[in-house]
């Protein structure tokens, strides 16, 4: 019975997101990006890292749908593979940061006392640095690369997750239903999972949704600055950086990945807003 009701709650949440027009748009666009990323090898017209000096800086044409960059690489194909990287790094780093942050926040909120104090001081330390600076410092130590980029971004997300989870846990823990469960003899482990975590989860999901777009923006930013992904890997940040020098003569080189990035970020934010409204018990009929 519990499984069945959980699933119906999930279905309810889904329909609550779907009921919002802007969230539906956001979901549709994100889905299109995900599909483009998944099927990049089939959709691409060229090898994304094949350089053809003779065909450099060509405007969009039949051969190169979105033109070529200064190395003669096909921008359309690079855009598809870049989506792969952006989404993988975005979701991967948020997932990693979320797991670590939620564990820390949960521990701090439930343990209290010295444990909580120690954890929260570490979290304060992490939060003292802006995400970009923290990730840059981390990458400077570890060196560039996709996996290091994921770790660096994940680290910068641990703080915010830990902080909000802890405050949510403190709030939920004071609710009469947690005390009621204890009085009823529900074991501690079960109280944490079924009563505390279940009620903290919506906040976590909403925050994760917002963080994905921040992660993708940061990833592009870091690559733009030259501390993220190394060339010639197809990456939007790198593409923008590379096209920056030719912005007046060949605006499509930087412009197209820029627009692709902007559309994805807007769509992700619409989706996150929809999630928030759907999961907030105070908003209308939705749970």
């Amino acid at each position: 019975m519990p499984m069945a009701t959980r699933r119906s709650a999930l279905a309810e949440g889904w329909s609550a997101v779907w009921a919002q027009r802007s969230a539906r748009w956001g979901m549709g666009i994100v889905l299109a990006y995900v599909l483009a990323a998944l099927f990049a090898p089939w959709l691409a017209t060229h090898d994304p890292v094949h350089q053809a000096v003779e065909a450099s800086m060509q405007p969009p044409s039949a051969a190169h749908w979105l033109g070529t960059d200064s190395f003669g690489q096909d921008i359309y194909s690079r855009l598809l593979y870049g989506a792969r990287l952006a989404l993988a790094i975005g979701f991967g780093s948020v997932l990693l940061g979320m797991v670590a942050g939620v564990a820390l926040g949960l521990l701090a909120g439930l343990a209290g006392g010295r444990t909580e104090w120690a954890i929260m001081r570490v979290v304060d330390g992490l939060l003292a640095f802006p995400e970009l600076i923290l990730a840059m410092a981390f990458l400077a130590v570890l060196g560039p690369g996709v996996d290091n980029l994921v770790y660096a971004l994940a680290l910068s997300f641990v703080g915010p997750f830990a902080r909000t989870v802890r405050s949510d846990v403190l709030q939920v823990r004071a609710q009469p239903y947690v005390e009621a469960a204890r009085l009823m003899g529900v074991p501690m482990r079960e109280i944490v999972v079924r009563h505390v975590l279940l009620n903290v989860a919506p906040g976590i999901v909403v925050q994760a949704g917002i963080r994905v777009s921040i992660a993708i923006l940061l990833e592009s930013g870091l690559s733009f600055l030259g501390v993220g992904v190394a060339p010639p890997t197809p990456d939007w940040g790198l593409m923008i950086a590379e096209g920056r020098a030719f912005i007046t003569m060949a605006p499509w080189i930087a412009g197209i990945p820029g627009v692709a990035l902007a559309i994805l970020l807007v769509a992700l934010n619409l989706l996150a807003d929809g999630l928030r409204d759907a999961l907030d018990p105070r908003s209308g009929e939705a749970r």
Partner: protein
Amino acid sequence: MNESTVPVFSVLDVEKRFLLRKGRGGPVELRALDGVRLDIEAGSSVALVGESGSGKSTLVRMLLGLDRPGEGRVLYDGIDLQQVLARDRSRFAREVAFVYQDARGSMNPRFTIGEIIGEPMRVHRLHPAQDIPRRVALLLERVGLPASVAVRYPHQLSGGQVRRVAVARALAQEPRVIMADEAVAGLDVSVQASLLNLLRELVAELKVTLVFVTHDLGVASYLCNRIAVMYLGRILETGPVDSILQGPAHPYTRGLLESFPRFDRPLRAPLRGEIPSPVDLPAGCRFASRCPCVQPQCTEADPVARALDGRRLVACLFPLSGEVAAA
């Protein structure tokens, strides 16, 4: 002492003080409970009656083991409650059920009613998992709710329905003792009446011991066979409902009875003023400042509870009726 005469709960001179960090003279002490004595016999239904701030909720939290007494002891079946909890918390948790005043708040908002009522059965393994939905339906029927409620969430039910669910959840753990804190307060009179009828039937049918906290003497007298009147952290009068209603021995009890609105006479307000602050209790009788029949001695000696008519206890130097037996 043989088994049948040991009360389910014995409260032995329990005190509870809270330190408040305000005031210029350092921390201030609040006496929430001050020398409370009470026996709760198996199968009885006891109402704790008093104005807000009288300490009745603190006493119930102590009986549930949520607060420890500062001094004195609480016995469960003649054994110290702290010992009982240390030895087998789960057994105590099953035997003693609590119905919260904030019934909705006492239910996980992300659980369905079926999960909420099923939880104690699942946790204490009272029934095999596949029988639980059927048991939930039976309990819902018993408290007068349709079985379809099981798939809904607490926020989808009305205040009265949620209280019924809270009662059903208490019954689900098959308890010996049910404690309820203002379980009918804040409901429409008709909803209140049907809930009271339900509770009265259940108590009679299941032979559970009931501890019912209320500020309403009418509710107390309808539901319970014993009343303990609390005032500023002490029990002023205890005894069988009928004899207290017919002849209140403590002026405070009489005051409470008279401030109860009735159709056949104009409303008097015999209890003048507010309950004094438990931070600085007056010397002598704690009710002296509001007592209509205060005597000079009342501000000097703090009256101890004395037996009256053999079955009642009253903490008053000049009880209103009956013979005072030697203390």
